[in-house]
């Protein structure tokens, strides 16, 4: 326990240095600024802003990126409360009650309860990350290639189970993502795989290009189809930013439950913030004495998902920092940023670079504080930004994405690849395929293949190694059970449909 406080103290002494505080503040600010733009989600925001951290020292860069991440998420909530377009998947839920509250003239209360809920959730989960960091790192030492592989399988299954729509199609997206991740030179032999003799593909497809294409360009193309005049921005000046005592009393329980739910779901690979907000909202509605008020401006409907998604955003750092496995697309971008600064994510970060590890954890808490500080006074600025018509916003976003992608490697080919993935993403949406599992599989693909190959080599080609080693067997068992549970209703439904015929 004393270790925990000593470590946190070390962290705060790093994160609270004026320079790092500045990076954190700047990150939270630009993150919110971009996150507020309609049609730009967290992943696209972080990917777009990645280049601006290149010139910083490693600790500063990661602190700023973490700030961007929280900012982007909070910006998304602001958009969904003030306009009826959710900026991203995590705020879809906030839209339901948040926008209703705004239409009833309670936008101020909704925004502040979202900020307060996020802050409380952030405080709790920061301590959780700090407390779980050490024990989980020691578990990581028990992990061999077989265990790593099984854990990633479990993560992908989570992503399948939690995806909207058909389980089969989500699995199809996973396999597509894995296949795409194998484009480029083979890790062991250096043989070019599926490169079609294009020199630029020999290094593989960059993750930022895929993310920008699927979450940035595709989203813009799709938004262009809808008439933008239907946007419903809250009119007039937002007043009464402070929630009333009654508001606070009403939402206290929701914030607490959202925090717990979000913290747990965030740790699971493949889970993350989206599911956390959905789960928290559903849970809150189920236990509420007045479920009929949900969807008509219930403050609990804002407090619970906002707390949950922030808690999950925080705890999703745990698998990355302890096991070196990115549990979602944003964390994959973090891996990219770490690699650029010469840091290999994994259990060794904590022992070899304690100032980086604990500095980042402390900056999470500071980042949340910054969000409260900058967002409440700056609401007016965000409203002004949201009044800019979409016909002017979307070309700006496109140009910004282009420059962002280009500046990562100074490569025009990357821009073209992102454009191709933009079209691909548009096609996926038309056929009800979810891009999120694809992206996660794309991220985990190389790690999975490496561990699979190593495990098979160590086991002398015996594939049963995944079910004979206890930890690996346990993970596989959970994965298979989850998949079966998810498939059951589908199979039954299909059978019914077939029998009706």
């Amino acid at each position: 326990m004393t270790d925990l406080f000593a470590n946190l103290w070390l962290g705060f002494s790093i994160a609270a240095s004026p320079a790092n505080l500045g990076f954190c503040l700047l990150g939270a600010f630009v993150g919110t600024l971009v996150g507020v733009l309609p049609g730009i989600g967290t992943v696209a925001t972080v990917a777009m802003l990645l280049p601006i951290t290149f010139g910083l020292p490693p600790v500063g860069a990661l602190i700023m990126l973490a700030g961007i991440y929280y900012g982007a998420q909070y910006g998304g909530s602001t958009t969904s409360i003030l306009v009826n377009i959710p900026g991203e998947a995590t705020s879809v839920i906030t839209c339901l009650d948040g926008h209703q509250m705004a239409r009833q003239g309670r936008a101020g209360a909704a925004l502040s309860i979202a900020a307060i809920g996020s802050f409380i959730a952030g405080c709790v989960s920061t301590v959780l990350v700090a407390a779980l960091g050490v024990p989980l790192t020691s578990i990581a030492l028990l992990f061999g290639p077989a265990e790593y592989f099984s854990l990633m399988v479990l993560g992908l299954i989570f992503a399948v189970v939690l995806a909207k729509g058909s389980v089969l199609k989500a699995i199809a997206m996973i396999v597509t993502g894995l296949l795409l991740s194998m484009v480029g030179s083979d890790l062991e032999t250096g043989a070019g795989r599926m490169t079609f003799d294009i020199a630029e593909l020999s290094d593989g497809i960059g993750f930022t290009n895929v993310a920008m294409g699927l979450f940035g360009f595709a989203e813009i193309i799709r938004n262009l189809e809808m008439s933008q005049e239907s946007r419903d921005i809250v009119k007039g000046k937002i007043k009464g930013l402070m929630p009333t005592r009654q508001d606070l009393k009403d939402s206290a329980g929701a914030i607490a439950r959202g925090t717990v739910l979000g913290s747990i779901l965030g740790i699971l690979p493949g889970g993350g913030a989206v599911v956390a907000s959905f789960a928290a909202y559903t849970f809150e509605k189920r236990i509420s004495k007045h479920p009929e008020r949900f969807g008509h401006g219930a403050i609990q409907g804002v407090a619970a998902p906002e707390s949950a998604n922030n808690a999950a955003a925080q705890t999703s750092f745990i698998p990355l920092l302890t096991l070196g496995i990115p549990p979602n697309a944003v964390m994959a971008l973090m891996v990219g940023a770490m690699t650029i600064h010469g840091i290999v994510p994994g259990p060794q970060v904590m022992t070899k670079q304690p100032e980086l590890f604990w500095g980042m954890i402390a900056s999470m808490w500071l980042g949340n504080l910054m969000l409260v500080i900058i967002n409440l006074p700056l609401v007016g600025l965000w409203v002004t930004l949201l009044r800019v018509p979409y016909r002017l916003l979307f070309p700006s976003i496109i140009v910004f994405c282009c420059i962002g992608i280009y500046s990562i490697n100074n490569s025009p080919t990357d821009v073209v690849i992102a454009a191709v993935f933009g079209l691909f993403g548009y096609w996926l949406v038309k056929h009800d395929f979810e891009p999120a599992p694809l992206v996660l599989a794309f991220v985990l693909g190389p790690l999975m293949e490496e561990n699979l190959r190593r495990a098979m080599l160590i086991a002398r080609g015996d594939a049963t190694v995944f079910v004979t080693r206890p930890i690996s067997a346990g993970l596989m068992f959970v994965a298979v059970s989850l998949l079966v549970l998810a498939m059951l209703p589908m199979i039954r439904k299909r059978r019914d449909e077939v029998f009706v015929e």
Partner: protein
Amino acid sequence: MSEGVKSSPSGGRFHFRVRGPRDFYGGLALIAMALIAMWATGELPGQQGFAFGPGTAPRIFAVLLAIIGALVALGGLLADGPPIEPYAVKGPAFVLVAILLFALMIRGVTITSLHLSVPPLGLVPSTFVAFMVSIMGSSEMRWVESLIAAVGMTIFCVLLFVYLLQLPFQLWPWV
């Protein structure tokens, strides 16, 4: 929508009809992707002894994708699904062209097989052109306003990326 499809007079039990076009054609496209992957990895060495070759894992996943694609397509034959939404052409086309123009202009490119040669034009013209072309994809575009916004955005990007972030960009064609 699906009721409408159901009530339409269907042929015999074995009549072939696409009931869920989104799934059916989506599945077919997955199969096509899998086939391309199989073809592209066909010549890579596979398993040698206990060691995976470079071609092993991609081929496993390509086969898996083909199977799943077939199942998805089959689902589209057996179960009713919504029709495919029409694709917009104008918006995506302008956005795509804008992005491609940016990629071509920013550093210049020479593709001999296409007899195409673009000199490096720099950040300012690339940003401006990409903005103007993509804005034409919107049905609500207004010229004066767009030109002002394009100039503003170009100045903003130059200030942010070149002066504030110090990223190495060529600004003009002649520098």
